């Protein structure tokens, strides 16, 4: 018994000691070596997403280029998609020192003073890139008249589309030519559901929002909207709008007919693009998707889409991928310079977004800005285009023709601008009411939008609950702020 105890005691001590020395050694090395140098000429950048598998190789090429022009290096720290919000809010409120970050909760944080004011810095230190931005980007990102973000020039407008699985369309010889609204899709959903009852005809789940020609001052989870086809100077409740009511009725009809999965309001099941578990889904598309090209590439099979809303330059689109410079950064000017370079230097950006030249892609000789993908191009060995840099200077694959590029630029010029672009609702006077409304909405949103409940019965209930939650007060406040915004 005694020796047994001694053995335990001794081994405990050994394990502890071992752990102490091993880990202590590791961390010491780190603080001595890299971080001191890091402060001087490496910028820290927080980015959302998964770290690419070949991060070191990618950044080695990129940093060479960045260092040449600006004299500093970039160190990108990745935080997972789902964790980004939690972690960034702690980092921001703790006042930790970083240089650049993918913006999270942009407007509130900008108002709090967490981000550096770029109104003057951006045109000065990142002139080229700044000049290429669509006007909507600047307008959509102004907070109290100041610019705090450097947005990625990409899908400045977006529209909602119904995307169809081409193989099923071909198989059952279905035509989608006449589809312009949800309702038009009904007949082919019916045919498909009869042929393949086990496959989700309209593949939606929790979090799905039925869409119409609306824009939302505080996100489409709240009952505040501007009807783009109606009086755009008025904020309305979209659940009181006749068109939207029709959409909800259609959803309910589809739900009852079985086109929508019966557990849609609670289900988190995803329907992978590349799979055959779905027939129709709802997607968002913008100019840099080149029609269905990007979507089909991601799916690895042919998909075709039909748009059912007007293309709209909205605040949401303008803030899609914002990069901010921290107010705690010691190198604000350098940070802006680096952002400017990423957004204006084709060689640098393409090396990041397409992967390493010669390994993942090569230029097609004789053609300008056209590339061919090589075997080295794999899903996780490059950065996504939408949250990295200026899409305009990206090289394109040969499948994207000059006509498509011309069409892209024309469509951007033609797209409508949302009347509420750049409008930020300040909630400080109505905080309690807002959280009450949020509670009410979380109760009704999924049921109504997925068609699980009958809108004719439920919408009046929703309205009543909203009134009890203080809806009118928020509405008056919002309309007041909106009127002021329109006057400017």
């Amino acid at each position: 018994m005694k020796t047994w105890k001694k053995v335990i005691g001794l081994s405990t001590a050994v394990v502890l000691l071992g752990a102490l020395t091993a880990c202590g050694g590791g961390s010491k090395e780190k603080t001595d070596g890299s971080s001191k140098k890091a402060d001087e000429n490496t910028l820290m950048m927080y980015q959302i997403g998964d770290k690419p598998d070949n991060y070191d190789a990618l950044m080695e090429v990129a940093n060479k280029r960045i260092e040449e022009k600006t004299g500093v290096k970039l160190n990108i720290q990745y935080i997972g998609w789902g964790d980004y919000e939690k972690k960034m809010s702690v980092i921001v409120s703790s006042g930790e020192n970083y240089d650049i970050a993918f913006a999270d909760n942009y407007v509130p944080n900008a108002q709090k003073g967490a981000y550096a004011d770029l109104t003057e810095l951006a045109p000065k230190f990142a002139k080229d890139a700044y000049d290429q931005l669509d006007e909507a980007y600047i307008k959509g990102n102004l907070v109290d008249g100041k610019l705090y973000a450097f947005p990625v020039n990409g899908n400045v407008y977006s529209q909602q589309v119904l995307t169809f699985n081409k193989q099923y369309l071909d198989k059952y010889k279905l035509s989608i030519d006449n589809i312009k609204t949800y309702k038009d899709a009904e007949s082919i959903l019916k045919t498909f559901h009869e042929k393949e009852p086990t496959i989700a005809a309209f593949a939606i789940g929790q979090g799905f929002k039925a869409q119409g020609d609306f824009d939302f001052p505080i996100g489409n989870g709240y009952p505040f909207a501007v009807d783009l086809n109606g009086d755009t100077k008025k904020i309305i409740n979209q659940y009181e709008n006749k068109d939207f009511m029709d959409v909800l009725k259609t959803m309910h009809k589809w739900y009852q007919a079985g086109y929508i999965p019966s557990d849609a309001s609670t289900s988190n099941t995803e329907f992978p693009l590349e799979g055959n578990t779905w027939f129709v889904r709802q997607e968002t598309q913008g100019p840099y998707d080149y029609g269905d090209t990007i979507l089909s590439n991601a799916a690895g099979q042919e998909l075709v889409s039909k748009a059912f809303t007007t293309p709209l330059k909205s605040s949401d689109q303008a803030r899609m991928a914002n990069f901010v410079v921290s107010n705690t950064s010691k190198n604000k000017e350098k940070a802006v310079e680096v952002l400017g370079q990423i957004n204006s230097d084709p060689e640098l950006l393409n090396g990041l977004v397409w992967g390493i030249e010669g390994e993942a892609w090569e230029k097609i000789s004789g053609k300008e800005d056209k590339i061919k993908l090589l075997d080295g191009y794999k899903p996780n060995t490059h950065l996504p285009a939408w949250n990295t840099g200026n899409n305009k200077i990206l090289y394109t694959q040969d499948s994207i023709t000059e006509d498509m590029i011309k069409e892209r630029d024309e469509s951007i010029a033609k797209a409508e601008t949302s009347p509420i672009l750049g409008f930020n609702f300040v909630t400080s006077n109505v905080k309690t009411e807002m959280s009450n409304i949020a509670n009410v909405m979380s109760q009704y949103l999924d049921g109504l939008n997925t068609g699980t409940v009958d809108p004719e019965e439920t919408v009046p209930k929703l309205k009543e609950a909203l009134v009890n939650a203080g809806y009118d007060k928020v509405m008056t406040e919002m309309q007041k702020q909106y009127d002021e915004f329109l006057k400017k």
Partner: protein
Amino acid sequence: MRKKPVSKVAIRSFNRPVNLFFNVLIAVFALSCVLPFLFVVAISLTKETALAAHGYSFWPQEFSFFGYTYLFDQMQEKIFQALFVTVIVTVVGTLINSTATSLYAYVISRSNFPFRRFFTVFCLITMLFSPGMVANYIVTANLLQLKDTIWALILPMAVSPFNIIVMRTFFKRSVSDSIIESARIDGASEMRIFIQIVLPLAVPGIATISLFAALGYWNDWFNALLYIQKDSLVPLQYLLMKIQNNIQYLTQNAGASSQLSGGMAAIPGESARMAIVVISTLPIAISYPFFQKYFVKGLTIGGVKE
């Protein structure tokens, strides 16, 4: 009236219908604890396409070990690295935690320790009032510079005030002053008294708080979320949370998914995720029975009056 003979057994037990009722009740409760886990195991063994077509069921419609083979082929490195980190953190953390906790508790349980009051209140305050996440973050990341080291996973949970209070009561109840006194008379030093007299008497209590600590360390993912950037230091539970959070993000932002999926690494399917749950729960579930005999004794003793 004739008196019924009463045996000792009859006094100490319920009558038959009550007994039956409680047995059924407890059985239902026990079943409801085990079923979800059986469910998880069943899903991890179901073919992915069968899940999409038929939904969940307790008996897999179509068997498949794909979830597990996927883990061992695709994520092998990550999983084993994460398992290794979790084991190290749990072992080292539990040792540190139980040592610190019992030392602190022993001192404040001794009536002749002058600052007993102060240290008890000090400990109680930290238990009752939480400083919040941001304050914790500032101390751990900025003040102590523990970010991206394994210590960030261990030290924030190294002392638990609640366990200190439990242990203090335990020492008070199970180690009488007279035994310490007699040891003192025999010439033992304070350290010797603690190690050779008090500790052996307190084994059930220490086993209990060690189990609490071990479970805490094993299940912790939040510290990793806050402090860990390096892939090599990600513990198993956080790996799971990360995958789960990513999926949730994707489904909630369904509209943007086409733009996101370009940069999204392939997400393991339902069955693979459930396989991770099985792998991450199994070791601690297996180790539970070994603690149990101490556990029952240790927990009750804290609440019994002499």
